[in-house]
């Protein structure tokens, strides 16, 4: 018996899936069961996005969200990496913070917003705070896991070859933990992106989250759906742009099989 499996390239598969979503979307809109203020067909959404782009509000909001993300994510990555390394190196710190961070991860991003407003008022620092609190725990845990999963014989080899304490940290533990660290950075990017949009939803006068909120206020389904799509696409594109080379580097060195995703 032979099994015929058609190998579809990942990019083609992703395009097919996107077209499928568009088709279902159009179908639901065409059925006409949903009122116009609650749902909009793809074409209306595209037109609304074009409008927003032309009057400059989309560009301004995108820029505002990205600047906030740049601050928040940089801070979160630095904190996550530093805390994760401390957790990985010290068993006491690791055990103590792991349960704390697992607990904090139970909080959705939006749950940090009220506290952020109380602490920082209406300043952008409130949004940065939400990003940091959303992304840091996951990045710290992933980094610590990356260190915990270093094969013990690598550490023993480095020690028997005469690596100093400093060299053990910088030349062995840090690079050996890279697969975990990269996982953490990507996870942190996703969670930080959740954080910035959640915070903007509740408090801001510019930003992707603000446009979402405004769309709901105006019963503008096209704007709501359009900004949701922009949030997804921009988040994914930046993930590829910023981290694809890191993933490729790790994969080529460690010899991991390429994942079946957009390469």
């Amino acid at each position, binding site marked *: 018996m032979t099994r015929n499996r058609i190998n579809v390239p990942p990019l083609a598969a992703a395009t097919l899936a996107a077209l499928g979503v568009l088709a279902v979307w159009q179908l639901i809109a065409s059925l006409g069961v949903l009122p116009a203020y609650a749902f909009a067909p793809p074409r209306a959404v595209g037109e609304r996005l074009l409008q927003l782009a032309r009057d400059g509000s989309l560009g301004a909001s995108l820029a505002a969200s990205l600047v906030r993300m740049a601050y928040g994510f940089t801070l979160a990555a630095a904190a996550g990496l530093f805390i994760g390394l401390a957790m990985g190196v010290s068993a006491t710190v690791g055990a103590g913070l792991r349960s704390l961070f697992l607990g904090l991860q139970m909080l959705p991003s939006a749950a940090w917003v009220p506290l952020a407003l109380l602490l920082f008022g209406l300043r952008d620092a409130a949004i940065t705070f939400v990003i940091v609190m959303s992304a840091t725990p996951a990045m710290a845990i992933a980094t610590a896991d990356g260190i915990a999963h270093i094969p013990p014989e690598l550490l023993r*080899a480095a020690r028997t*070859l005469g690596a100093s304490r400093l060299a053990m940290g910088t030349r062995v533990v840090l690079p050996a933990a890279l697969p975990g660290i990269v996982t953490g950075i990507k996870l942190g990017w996703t969670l930080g992106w959740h954080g910035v949009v959640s915070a903007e939803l509740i408090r801001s006068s510019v930003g992707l989250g603000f446009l979402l909120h405004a769309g709901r206020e105006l019963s503008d389904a096209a704007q709501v759906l359009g900004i949701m799509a922009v949030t997804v696409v921009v988040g994914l594109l930046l993930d590829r742009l910023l981290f694809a080379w890191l993933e490729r580097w790790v994969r080529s060195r460690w010899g991991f099989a390429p994942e079946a995703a957009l390469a």
Partner: protein
Amino acid sequence: MTAVTVAAAGRARPASPRVELRGVSKAFAGRRAPVEALGPLDLAVADGEFVVLVGPSGCGKTTLLNLVAGFEFPSAGEVLFDGRTVVGPGPDRVMIFQQPALFPWLNVLDNVAFPLLRDRTTSRRQRRARATEQLHRVHLDGFEDAFVHELSGGMKQRAALARALAAGPGVLLCDEPFGSLDALTRERLYAQLQELHGDTGATVLFVTHNTREAACLADRVIVLSARPARVKCVLEVGLPRPRDFYDPDVSRLAGRILAELRGELGESQGP
């Protein structure tokens, strides 16, 4: 055969040994009582000597190597290297493991150059030149830029050997380094290891449970008892080198070692 002389257990001590164990024993904390893993035993390895430790599995061979490497410390007695008590791992006593333990984030050349980084006076170019030389020794020319996962099992272990030699160790500690390789690759590596030993005059302490491997490689075979390991008997091997894995003398010696091991396990020989 006259090629093999049997020395009484615990004697046969070289004049100025590089590695010396004096009355060493090691116990690990067990659930109720401490578990005796090793000894008490005495052992000495002379400069340039190739000593193979053979013993039933789980007898504490690896523990013995870990003590010399400085990964573990004896419960009683003394472990000395060049007359000084071992206080921790170091590049003067490099250990090679069953897994090659190469660093995946470095290419092959940089793996071999890793121990050379300790010497701050060398330039990058000097380190690369010396690493290239070591790779040539283990016949890995042309694989300098390869990533670790691109090498076969035997090539990885050869790269690990080159990396260990680059550290310039006083003694090479081998913990069943060929245990996970296929037979053909292993036999080729026996020849290369003997050649290396001849060229470099390295002192080697080699652990295995493969009696033929022991017979093929050793200047001296030390047969250990079941746990806690003690020196059961010492076989001085006078066979000429390089030895072929299938040489009849090697086979005969392997049989002899096996007989000693069987005796240790309390199994009867013959039908």
